């Protein structure tokens, strides 16, 4: 089993959908981030004479209730959605890897107990947990007056979504560490008297890059999607800020058979769907690249 980076890269490039998705994703990310200079002032500029206008030359993606240009709102929302997804996934990966690695390496009763806890959390609906977390973390920040700004909501959401999404990661990493632990080179490290944390950090972690990258990538779209659900239920980002999810949720709320303002839903949703699909494809491609299962 040779895990030379070149072959993994070659396998990823062979997965054509993943390759195209990676390009799409890079473009989307560049577009959202580079346009921030215009989208930050543009997203809240109200044109009250032109509320809910369909797409036109002046506002290519139409305007919302307050006459705000949906183009800037979608671009800005993308930047927030993507950064929220990435940060939440980073937290999930961090917790999941540390938890799974410790459980797998220590093993025995400790492993049993730690995995039972994961089972317990699995038995709770994640959306319910996220809402509970969002409200309790938010209330804590409020009472102790930590981070008293419009970003506090964003931080709360990142913490809540990241703090709930690490379960799968922990299971996968534990499984990997469980089999790594029996490998001769870990045994050699242990025989040399290297402390446990160093074995985990220097000898085990580099061998976990594959699953970490794969599941990290697959956690990002999940986190973005969960945020859109939270937005729809009214516990998402606070109004001056926007994400693709909150824009879509606002658009859906504004829809009715008499005024079918499709552009309010279609544009944020298209951006959201393209990104989620691309992330899923990239994740699949990475999995194939790292797993190296002969036939495929």
């Amino acid at each position: 089993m040779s895990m030379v980076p070149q072959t993994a890269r070659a396998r990823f490039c062979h997965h054509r959908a993943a390759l195209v998705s990676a390009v799409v994703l890079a473009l989307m990310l560049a577009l959202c981030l580079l346009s921030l200079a215009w989208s930050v002032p543009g997203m809240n500029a109200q044109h009250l004479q032109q509320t809910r206008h369909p797409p036109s030359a002046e506002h290519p993606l139409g305007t919302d209730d307050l006459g705000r240009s949906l183009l800037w709102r979608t671009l800005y929302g993308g930047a927030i959605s993507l950064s929220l997804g990435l940060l939440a996934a980073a937290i999930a990966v961090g917790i999941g890897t540390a938890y799974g690695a410790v459980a797998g390496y220590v093993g025995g009763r400790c492993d049993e107990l730690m995995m039972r806890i994961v089972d317990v959390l699995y038995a709770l609906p994640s959306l319910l947990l996220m809402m509970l977390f969002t409200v309790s973390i938010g209330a804590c920040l409020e009472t102790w007056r930590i981070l008293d700004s419009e970003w506090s909501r964003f931080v709360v959401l990142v913490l809540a979504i990241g703090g709930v999404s690490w379960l799968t990661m922990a299971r996968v990493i534990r499984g990997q560490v469980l089999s790594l632990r029996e490998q001769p080179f870990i045994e050699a490290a242990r025989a040399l008297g290297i402390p446990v944390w160093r074995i985990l950090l220097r000898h085990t972690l580099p061998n976990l890059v594959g699953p970490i990258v794969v599941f990290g990538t697959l956690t990002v779209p999940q986190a973005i999607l969960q945020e859109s659900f939270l937005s729809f239920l009214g516990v998402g980002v606070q109004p001056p800020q926007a994400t693709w999810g909150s824009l879509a949720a606002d658009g859906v709320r504004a829809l009715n058979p008499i005024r079918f303002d499709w552009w309010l839903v279609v544009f944020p949703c298209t951006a959201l769907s393209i990104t989620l699909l691309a992330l899923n494809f990239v994740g699949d491609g990475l999995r194939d690249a790292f797993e190296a299962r002969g036939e495929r």
Partner: protein
Amino acid sequence: MLRFILQRLLTFPLLLLVIYGSAVLLIMATPGEGLESGDKELPPEVLEQKRIAYNYDQPWWQRYFWTWPKRLVWDRDLPTHQYEDWTVVEIMASALPVSLQLGLLSLGIAVLLGIGGGTIAVAFRGRWLEHITVAMCLIGISLPTFVIGAILLIVVALWLGAVPVGGWGRPAQAILPAITLALPYAAYIARLTRSALLDAYAEDYIRTARAKGLSETRVLLDHALRNALLPVLSYLGPAAAAIFTGSFIVEKIFTIPGMGTHVVESINNRDQSLILATVIVYAVLLASFNLLVDLLYGLVDPRIRVGAKHA
């Protein structure tokens, strides 16, 4: 097998206790008792009376681990914090059956659509029917439920007038919400089924089956599918969990009087008694569902029955 069941049954109450304990912990981390709700300030005497009515005069461990569970399960008179005239049990009794029906219906649809779709995709490899199924799956995983629901609602219910717009009680009212709720999971199950079937096709027993002269249909349905169902089965537990919570959103779109509204409101208003009750209800529901899936797993795959200890 019997030992496995017993083991799972015995750990069940412990599991519930741990879940309940974690919920209590989360609630205690949230400041406020949920009694001061409303715009106007309550007179101190009234607040004091309310606190006594909800046992806030007791120490927390007595309140959360003795008085409330007792009032909830035994006396059934624990009121919710937001509506004092309603007990938690009454609210659950009215909302839970609705959510259960919706969830089970959706789960059924998701399994049928998913396994059907995955099988069709494999049976028609390389033809347009496969591409259509794959495209449907992609839409299912990349659009938020509330968007799919809203589009279905407007097109099918409002423009075509084929089914009622919202509400609950008649079978026609259940069609759209159940489909909306099922679609993302159907998409995932279809993907699982498809890749498991493709994996199965690489196995020797498929070659044996073909060598015996079985028709391609029988090879697919009798031999490949049976083994491909295992990953689907193990996904049913998480899928059920996600469907029962996903129902919050669908219930909101289609104005269904299920658990969703109560869950969202109770959390937003810090309605402690209702939050704890919903957490318990969901935990019991999902834990028993997982147990059921484990048992089914043993029935489908004889290897697991033997190696239950190691699984």
